[in-house]
């Protein structure tokens, strides 16, 4: 099992804000599942994953000899995958593995969602460019993860801060990787699920820098960020690094994915500058309207759908109680996030704003991501409400300080990512609030600094921004020589 942090369900003694109906003091180790006995043994072996067969066999033998001390029988490792397929544990393994694969596909759908959101909230003259960037990011994110990221993020034994990566892959016949001796799913499933997460972290930045960043520069920036930087912060927690040792808790990545992306985006936007004409003299902000509210709404609904895999799959098994619990907390936070942002934006801005409501859904989802398995029902409601409120104020705030973020990525992912992580310390006992603050700030800080360095280096060498003329005419023509809507002339072209 790659993940040091046991992302199974944690029921802890509830704090005062939690639902009194929650079973108390119950450790949900899925005690009916004999898999976890093997799991515990393999957890010990995890750090030696890359060593030779001989050492592995020796350790198995040692543990077998010591088995009376554990007070239970260890199932023997399987002779072959086929032997495993004949065994009793195969059916459960298949179900668990299937859910993880479905979750990976659901996380993939988030790229479709993000493409729609970004396209809808920006101008039609830049649509081809935005779609091209989104297409590129998911592809390079996964490939980079294969070449370097996966092994850098889950190195086994390491110094806790950084491990270098390598080409991924194991032997298909390796029984310790393809059976429940590894986890509730195969090594390949582990890879693809994690690879989808990596790709989503990269795509957060593309929304914030839209409509003025040079394509080639962005492609290099995104490749470097997701391939080399994302695994570093990921290893700190999910790879068993220093944050994991401090007891930091990030169930599905409010910090490791969302705050990471949000603060990387912030640094990039600071170096890049706002779109021309966005901030006028006298503190006036000129709204640059998105060209398709339907697409934006469709995108948000798709992201919501994908989040069922993002959070649901992070249970790392198909455990009925665990996954169903996460589905409910996730949904509640999304719903209250939207309601809160609708009410707040209506009160503040005098009219109900669709795009704020849509951002509220995402804010709630980002907020619940750190603690979907550990916070109570009332906790998830509060998390959504506060995230939905925060995001409205944050979007207005960033415009006030002249940080131009066309889709609200910094507010949704950065600000609410931090909130979601800290909320785990408030609404559950999974980790103390101090550690949560430390963890989320250090992840955000590294993302910010790394992105800043990358952006400045690229600005100085390749140039970060398109020319003013090209920005005016639209990146579709400037970068691609193409139009997204050749059959009609939408209102604000040229």
């Amino acid at each position, binding site marked *: 099992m790659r993940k040091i942090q046991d992302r199974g369900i944690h029921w802890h003694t509830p704090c005062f804000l939690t639902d009194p109906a929650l079973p108390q003091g119950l450790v949900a180790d899925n005690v009916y599942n004999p898999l976890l006995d093997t799991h515990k043994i393999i957890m010990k072996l995890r750090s030696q994953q890359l060593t030779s067969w001989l050492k592995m066999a020796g350790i198995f033998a040692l543990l077998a000899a010591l088995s009376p001390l554990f007070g239970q029988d260890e199932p023997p490792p399987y002779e072959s995958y086929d032997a495993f397929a004949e065994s009793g544990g195969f059916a459960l393994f298949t179900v668990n593995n299937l859910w993880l694969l479905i979750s990976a596909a659901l996380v993939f759908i988030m790229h479709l969602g993000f493409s729609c959101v970004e396209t809808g909230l920006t101008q039609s003259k830049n649509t081809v460019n935005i779609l091209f960037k989104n297409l590129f990011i998911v592809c390079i994110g996964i490939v980079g993860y294969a070449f370097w990221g996966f092994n850098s993020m889950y190195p086994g034994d390491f110094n806790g801060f950084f491990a270098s990566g390598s080409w991924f892959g194991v032997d298909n016949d390796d029984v310790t990787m393809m059976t429940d001796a590894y986890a509730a799913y195969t090594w390949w499933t582990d890879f693809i699920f994690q690879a989808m997460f990596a790709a989503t972290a990269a795509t957060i930045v593309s929304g914030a820098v839209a409509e003025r960043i040079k394509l080639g520069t962005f492609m290099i920036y995104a490749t470097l960020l997701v391939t080399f930087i994302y695994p570093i912060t990921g290893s700190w927690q999910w790879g068993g690094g220093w944050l994991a040792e401090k007891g930091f808790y990030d169930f599905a990545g409010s910090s490791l994915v969302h705050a990471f992306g949000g603060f990387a985006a912030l640094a990039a936007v600071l170096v890049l500058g706002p779109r021309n004409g966005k901030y006028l003299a006298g503190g006036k902000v000129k709204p640059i309207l998105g060209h398709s509210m339907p697409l934006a709404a469709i995108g948000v609904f798709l992201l919501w759908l994908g989040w069922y895999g993002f959070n649901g799959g992070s249970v790392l098994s198909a455990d009925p109680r665990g996954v169903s619990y996460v589905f409910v907390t996730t949904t509640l936070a999304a719903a209250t996030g939207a309601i809160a942002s609708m009410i707040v934006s209506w009160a503040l801005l005098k009219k109900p704003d669709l795009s704020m409501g849509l951002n509220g859904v995402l804010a709630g989802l980002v907020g619940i991501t750190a603690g979907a398995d550990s916070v109570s029902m009332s906790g998830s409601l509060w998390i959504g409400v506060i995230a939905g409120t925060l995001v409205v104020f944050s979007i207005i705030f960033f415009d006030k300080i002249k940080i131009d973020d066309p889709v609200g990525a910094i507010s949704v992912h950065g600000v609410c990512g931090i909130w979601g992580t800290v909320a785990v310390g408030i609404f559950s006992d999974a980790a103390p609030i101090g550690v949560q603050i430390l963890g989320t700030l250090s992840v955000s800080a590294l993302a910010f600094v790394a992105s800043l360095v990358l952006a400045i280096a690229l600005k100085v060498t390749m140039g970060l921004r398109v020319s003013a003329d090209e920005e005016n005419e639209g990146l579709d*023509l400037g970068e691609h*020589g*193409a*139009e997204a809507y050749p059959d009609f*002339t939408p*209102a*604000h*072209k*040229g």
Partner: protein
Amino acid sequence: MKLIIAIIKPFKLEEVKEALSEIGIEGMTVTEVKGFGRQKGHTEIYRGSEYTVDFLPKVKVEIVVPDDVVGKTVDTIVKAGKTGKIGDGKVFVVGLEEAVRIRTDERGEAAI
């Protein structure tokens, strides 16, 4: 009364509108059009083949003004709509026979 027709670059519309408002012209009609003069179109490429798009998006602004402000209005439009680059557009002045305000039945300059 004269009808002034100005073809300008779309992103210049706000500027022209504000400049006209400053000299006291408050009403106008705006249409999105496509056109070209001496400005060449641009080349695009689709799935390996190049093609030229000759017609470029422009905005047509139509204003009716009394005779005594025609000169000032034209100058304002030219100044606000100029970028110095090819494709800035043109202004035409057309004689007008009659104008009527629908709400009040006023005619002539009172209707402008």
